[in-house]
């Protein structure tokens, strides 16, 4: 059933509290991070004395002031909290200031003197490759004999694809409020997808113990992966200032600083060779993925891995090799972003399939359908996992019909034949996305469920709410498991003192993992309650006892299914538990079963299951300006048995539009010194209301229960982003129509108006040249 987001009323009234809204007293200090203006430089000397003299300034800190480890790398310890001798990107933190006002912070910053010796930075993937600036040794995956299969293929295709970086553009910028308690105690209100990691890093940084740090996350104003590790940074800086000054400290990055300091989606330079036959069947694929990791490791290894695991997208490739290179550059360390490398891998495959169709002069939809993973055969991925519960054909057949693809394709051709300056294009693209962390041990979750004597329930779990509706789903899961109305259940702010040692809320797996952990806790509680209530019923019916296992929890009551007259309201029963000495607090724990993944070999069963979706987009391109309009989009997406269609459709629509943004208007540019040029919404353009399709039709695939997740549901967050490729390839299709589909457009991602116009111009020039040479076009 559809229910609004559990905080919807608070959102629309402004009551919802974000970190910057927490009421604070006048003891609060404003924190500020001072960062490197150089992409690569030695720090020769610095002088903080004048800055420290500014009235109202309580601390100006450098790396020497860190009591514990100067480190905030999440996986590899290669990210100092504050730079010591060398800076390796513009935006790297060097000093921290705490003062009573922001103006005092700014004044102190102006008075800091630093002497740098600039060093040669690496700012492009080309230069990183030239200098062999690798973060890790190359990774490989191999199935079959791709070289041999390529040489035996009827057709060969070679190419290079660039996919751009992207800024998360969560509406709430990075922010943290750290409040010291007695002794070493610190309570940290963080905007973090990973409170346990935030806690651990702060403890190490301050040289204190984890049981002295509490991290709490009520909600984030958007995250999209951007607060999986990099929410830690602002939290660490705030905590350090609070630890030193023993005053509450809040750091909130302004939008420009947030964009300059934080990492982006990894840009990729990918090379591919594909072999296929006359029917368009893929025989072999060789892919080399070059990922720009930025200046440190962050999550780049897992992101590259997921890209490698998704170069197949929805298609069976008998012979396949994938090489993944992770390059170090002097840009802020790139990080998780919805899709986590998947989009970069899938972009390559969608380009290949689209190009096969163009070579063979066939409709790309036909080539796609032919190459889909089979149901009973041709169903093993290039890393050895069998594609089970394949929904591709179901989605394809239903979507081709509901979108009237064939009829509209004809109309598009007719339109293009009669228009010179406006061209239309269409594309259908699928997504198959593996659900699970590929770092297998992360697939775990914990919960703490408390029931109180008034029959209200407080659910704590390790997942964080960033707008995706996790708490709304958890609330319903808990209510359903207890058989009570949803109003009884409140989901608490995520808090490391309630549920410790958790994984990040990421990989689309928040509900899958935490929902199961909550269910496990509730099962424990129901067991205890049932035992006590069976005794209670038995006391009242001497000689005809109730058994715990026949008690059911439903309709806000507890009932003996064998004796329907034995019923007690949930509230009344809970009121009795204290006197009956039953604990109404239980923890739950869950780890995903059946996952095994041999990273070194690139082989195994890394995913619990796959999520599927499909999308048809139609666009119109103005060939004189390069502008485009999304005319219509039809999406059919597989979320299993939806836990909440309103929320799931919201995720699908929002994910698609985010994907369209990455594919079209969102362009990141740096200057030759490594300064981010597109550091504000003035120049970095995420989609606005008029960029959405004029006709936008989104449905969920029906009657497809998923046996592998809570209540037969399926993860949703990331996969729909990759449906944005249909808009991207529809634009390419429209550009291709300029040359009557005889010439293939040069294309990259994002397809900005500039990319589109230049592609159009090249085709026009080529047509002219061919006409001049007497070539029939």
């Amino acid at each position, binding site marked *: 059933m559809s229910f609004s987001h559990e905080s919807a009323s608070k959102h629309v009234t402004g009551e919802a509290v974000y970190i910057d809204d927490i009421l604070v007293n006048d003891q609060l200090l404003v924190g500020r991070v001072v960062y490197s203006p150089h992409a690569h430089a030695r720090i020769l000397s610095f002088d903080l004395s004048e800055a420290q003299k500014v009235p109202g300034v309580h601390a100006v800190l450098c790396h020497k002031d860190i009591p514990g480890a100067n480190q905030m790398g999440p996986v590899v310890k290669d990210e100092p909290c504050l730079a010591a001798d060398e800076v390796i990107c513009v935006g790297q933190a060097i000093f921290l200031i705490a003062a009573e006002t922001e103006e005092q912070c700014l004044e102190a910053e102006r008075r800091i003197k630093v002497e740098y010796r600039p060093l040669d930075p690496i700012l492009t993937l080309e230069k990183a490759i030239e200098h062999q600036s690798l973060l890790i040794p190359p990774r490989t995956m191999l199935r079959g004999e791709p070289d041999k299969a390529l040489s035996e293929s009827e057709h060969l295709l070679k190419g290079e694809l660039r996919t751009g970086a992207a800024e998360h553009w969560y509406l709430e910028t990075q922010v943290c409020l750290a409040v010291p308690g007695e002794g070493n105690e610190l309570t940290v209100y963080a905007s973090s997808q990973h409170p346990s990691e935030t806690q651990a890093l702060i403890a190490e940084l301050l040289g204190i113990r984890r049981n002295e740090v509490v991290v709490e996350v009520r909600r984030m104003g958007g995250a999209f992966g951007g607060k999986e590790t990099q929410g830690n940074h602002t939290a660490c800086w705030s905590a350090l200032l609070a630890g030193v000054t023993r005053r509450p400290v809040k750091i909130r990055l302004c939008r420009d600083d947030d964009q300059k300091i934080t990492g982006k989606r990894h840009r990729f330079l990918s090379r591919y060779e594909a072999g296929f036959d006359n029917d368009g069947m893929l025989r072999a694929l060789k892919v080399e993925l070059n990922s720009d990791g930025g200046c440190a490791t962050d999550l780049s290894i897992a992101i590259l891995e997921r890209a490698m695991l998704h170069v197949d997208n929805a298609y069976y490739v008998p012979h396949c090799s994938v090489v993944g290179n992770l390059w170090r550059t002097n840009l802020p360390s790139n990080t998780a972003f919805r899709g986590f490398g998947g989009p970069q891998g899938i972009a390559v495959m969608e380009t290949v399939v689209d190009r096969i169709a163009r070579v063979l002069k066939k409709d790309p939809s036909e080539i796609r359908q032919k190459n889909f993973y089979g149901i009973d055969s041709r169903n093993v991925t290039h890393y050895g996992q069998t594609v089970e519960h394949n929904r591709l054909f179901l989605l394809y057949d239903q979507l081709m019909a509901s979108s009237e693809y064939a009829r509209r394709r004809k109309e598009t051709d007719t339109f293009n034949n009669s228009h010179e300056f406006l061209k239309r294009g269409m594309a259908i693209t699928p997504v198959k996305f593996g659900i699970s962390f590929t770092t297998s041990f992360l697939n775990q979750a914990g919960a703490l469920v408390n029931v109180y004597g008034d029959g209200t329930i407080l659910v704590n779990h390790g997942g964080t709410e*960033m707008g995706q*509706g996790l708490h709304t789903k958890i609330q319903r899961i808990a209510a359903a498991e207890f058989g009570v109305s949803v109003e009884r259940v409140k989901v608490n702010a995520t808090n490391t003192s309630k549920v410790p040692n958790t994984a990040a809320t990421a990989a689309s797996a928040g509900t899958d993992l935490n929902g199961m952990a909550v269910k496990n806790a509730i099962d424990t509680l129901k067991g205890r309650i049932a035992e006590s209530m069976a005794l209670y019923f038995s006391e009242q019916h001497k000689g005809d006892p109730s058994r715990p296992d026949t008690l059911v929890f439903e309709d806000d009551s507890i009932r003996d299914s064998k004796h329907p007259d034995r019923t007690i309201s949930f509230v009344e029963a809970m009121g009795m538990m204290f006197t009956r000495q039953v604990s109404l607090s239980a923890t739950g724990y869950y780890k995903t079963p059946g996952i095994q993944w041999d990273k070194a070999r690139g082989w195994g069963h890394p995913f619990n299951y796959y999520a599927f979706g499909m999308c048809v987009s139609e666009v119109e391109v103005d060939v004189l300006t390069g502008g485009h309009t999304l005319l219509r989009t039809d999406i059919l997406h597989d979320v299993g048995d939806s836990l909440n269609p309103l929320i799931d459709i919201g995720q699908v629509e929002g994910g698609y539009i985010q994907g369209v943004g990455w594919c079209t208007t969102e362009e990141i540019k740096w200057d030759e010194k490594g300064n981010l040029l597109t550091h504000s919404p003035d120049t970095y353009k995420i989609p606005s209301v008029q960029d959405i399709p004029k006709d936008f039709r989104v449905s969920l695939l029906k009657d497809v229960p998923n046996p592998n997740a809570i209540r037969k549901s399926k993860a949703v967050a990331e996969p729909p982003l990759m449906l944005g490729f249909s808009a991207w390839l529809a634009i390419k299709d429209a550009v291709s129509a300029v040359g009557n589909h005889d010439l293939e457009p040069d294309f990259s991602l994002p397809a900005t108006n500039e990319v589109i116009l230049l592609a159009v111009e090249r085709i026009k020039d080529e047509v002219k040249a061919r006409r001049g040479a007497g070539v029939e076009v």
Partner: protein
Amino acid sequence: MITKVTFLLDDVLETVDFAADPSVSPTTTVLNYLRGLPNHKGIKEGCAEGDCGACTVVLGELDGDSSIRYKSVDSCLLFLPMIHGKQLITVENLQNGEGMLHPVQQAMVDAGGSQCGFCTPGFVMSLFSLYKEKNVPSRAEIDGALTGNLCRCTGYRPIVEAAAHSCMHDGLDQFTERKIHTVNLLKSIPRGPMAIETGKQSFFRPSTIREAVSLKRLHPDAVVVCGATDVALRVTKRHELIGKIIDISGVEELRTITDRPESLTIGSAVTISEAIIPIETSFPALREMLSLFASKQIRNVATFGGNLGTASPIGDTPPVLIAYGARVVVTDGGREREVPLDEFFVGYRKTAMAKDELIKAIVIPKLRNGSLVRGYKVSKRKDLDIATLSGGFRLDLDSRGKVAGLVLAYGGMAEKTKRAVSVEKFMIGKPWDRRTVEQAMPLVDNDFHPISDTRGSAEFRMIAARNLLLKFWVDTTGKDDAQL
């Protein structure tokens, strides 16, 4: 002389005394003022530059003697003194006395219009302003009301749905019920010239042109603002302490619109929103450009005078105004003179105005029969984006179908809005046909040498600039693609 700022908030008249309260200054934004209060944390800062709309509030202004006009504004670009005499409405004010959600709030809940919720208060305020302004708005009107709000979660569809489902009660709500009371409170606020001095900063709000000009003479270093949507960035982004500000938005003489048979005169302090209806019939190409001008929130405060006075080479209105043959009326308080707009811009952010002159108005001549004007804006995103390049073109044909007059004004191609003179010269006397236009296109290269920047490369600008000529030809000849 008014020295304190008074406005209506939470149904109470609030007075801010800058001399007595060191926590505020004349350049404190309404956003920061509100967020400093314990009970107005609903509005958010998303960008502090008027691009995201998370800080949207609605201002209620007296309209005539007994009504109130509501308009959405970005509170991050609004200095506190600029809301003097107005009602400041925030998201916390929308529930009625019984705590019921406002129709626009309820519709947002029902449609699933919020996910992370951070942009939501801003959207709700834009929807509220639409609710008060339009009954049963069209999709275009809904889009127009929401272009100034960014959402990264939803993909906007449910928010558009919420607008369509809620804006249907003739704007009736508790604000309607309290209107008389509100009007009386607003009327009780003293009007007239304002001068705020804090020692560090001065903020003047004159009531007449004469006062404004004499202030400018007295304070040649003062910054003149009206909507301040551009100048505010110096405070919010560059943390500048602007010493002296002269706000001319209170000068009634600058706020008039005069419609004559031969021309339309728009006062320099008329907002873009206020000008849209008056220009609609006679100047459709300008109307089209104004619909792409920034966002609703910014159009509600930004002015013609500001867009011309800032003399940006990428301003939205100059090319099409030049195409219409617009003239700028400047005044030094006594003497007035008219400057053709294409002579008004003399360099990068430089105008032909003398130090003690102010823009009084812009005069737009109405077109002769047969004149054709079009405006074009090429930008990365359709809405709320600064033009990579833009064009304002006018064509007059003689009786034989030859080009008798041609104005080709381009923005974003040079240090100022500039005409493609060699193309214009080439085309005069020639037939307005595709072959000739295509011959003229390469001549654009003689007129411009644009730069490459974040918005586009020089190559892209040149290609698009040439192509706009062809586009103009297609549009003016009515040669639908199908006939080509």
